[in-house]
């Protein structure tokens, strides 16, 4: 089968649908590569952050992580938590422990922001997954409709009358599926990786929050002189 020959011999409607589907395909692969790169970078930086992080026992030391606080989601979440922690401490003595929840909320906000960034583009991928087979189906229905119109116009159901419409019909479905199947795989792959990262961030937040609350409690029970 020569897909280009089929393309050139198709009707205008089928050609438009095929062009749109090719654009979808290029778009979905571009999103996939971009997200794959971003997630890989995030994971690499996250790992190196966690390596350094485990050697810092208290919050004050953690402030000295430098660029590690900025170039990965863990660091940014931690930084937001530290900022909130410091503002709580500087509010005066004794620290109101009920406000400790604010630290947690600040880190949750940061996490939501990180996930939102990572998920950008995935709705487009989801749309391509859903829309491509339908576009292909539209071409199919269109081609079959044309075939029947040809039969009516020619007054004959000879294969030479019907075949062009049918080939249009089938090729657009093929294109639609060729676009949708990889996009579906990419979508699921990326989503599962983001969900995994999300739960890791969740664990990290609860760990950091526990540490901060302990320090708050310690500092309020032993107010500095």
């Amino acid at each position, binding site marked *: 089968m020569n897909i280009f020959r089929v393309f050139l011999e198709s009707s205008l409607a089928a050609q438009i649908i095929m062009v749109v589907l090719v654009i979808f*395909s290029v778009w979905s692969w571009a999103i996939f590569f971009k997200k794959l790169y971003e997630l890989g970078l995030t994971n690499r930086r996250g790992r190196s952050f966690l390596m350094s992080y485990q050697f810092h026992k208290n919050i004050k030391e953690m402030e000295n992580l430098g660029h590690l606080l900025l170039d990965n989601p863990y660091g940014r979440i931690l930084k937001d938590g530290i900022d909130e922690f410091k503002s709580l401490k500087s509010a005066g003595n004794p620290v109101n422990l009920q406000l400790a929840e604010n630290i947690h909320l600040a880190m949750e906000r940061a996490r939501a922001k990180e996930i939102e960034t990572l998920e950008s583009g995935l709705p487009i991928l989801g749309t391509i997954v859903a829309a491509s087979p339908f576009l292909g189906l539209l071409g199919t229905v269109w081609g079959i409709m044309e075939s029947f119109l040809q039969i009516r116009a020619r007054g004959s159901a000879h294969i030479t009358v019907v075949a062009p419409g049918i080939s249009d019909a089938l090729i657009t479905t093929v294109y639609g599926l060729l676009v949708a199947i990889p996009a579906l795989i990419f979508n699921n792959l990326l989503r599962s990786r983001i969900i995994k990262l999300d739960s890791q961030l969740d664990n990290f937040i609860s760990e950091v929050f526990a540490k901060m609350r302990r320090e708050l409690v310690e500092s309020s029970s032993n107010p500095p002189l």
Partner: protein
Amino acid sequence: MDRFTIFSLLLHLLLFGTIAVSSRNTFKSIPKMEVYKVSLAPLPQPKVAGIPEPPAEPPPVTKEPEKKVEEKKPPEEKKVSVKKETKESKETKESKQTKETKKKGLPDGLPDIRPQIYTGSGRGFTYSYYLNILLNKIAQNWNNPYRNEDVILKSVVYFEVDKNGVISNIRIEEDSGDEIYNESTIRAVALTKKLPPLPEEFSDDYLKVHLEFLTAK
């Protein structure tokens, strides 16, 4: 466009290129397959002065002055009002001119059609009984999609008949401008597949046929 889009675009181009290259071979081999394109070319008029030029392609045998063979028109053609004619040479300006003059000279729907066939070598193919069989067989397989319509279409199909009568190298030589019509003519030749072996006296390896299919009301 970021680098990922460009990368994706390049990947697609590579993919399409690979498919194009790989499917080119299969596409080329299609004419050798049994039924795909066959050309039946009925010409409207008996030729008077048109002398086909020697084919541009290197002919298998040395060229000689061609002789014309006239045949009776197969009965089916009359019904369909399609004239068939085979010519050996490729069409050149000269031959086109001669055709035009012939057309002018002929009234519409001329009943009498005398197809002519020239061998690939330029030698005259003088076995009219064989040509009758050829035309009849192909006419039987031709399902003209515009049989009863008021259209004038002409396509020329080129094919070769080897010593065993097997038809090969079928292709459209002159496009009628209508895909369905082209397909029908090619199909007519392709469906014929095999003819009786060429006359033993015929010395060439194969017979080149330019068959013109004409639909006119």
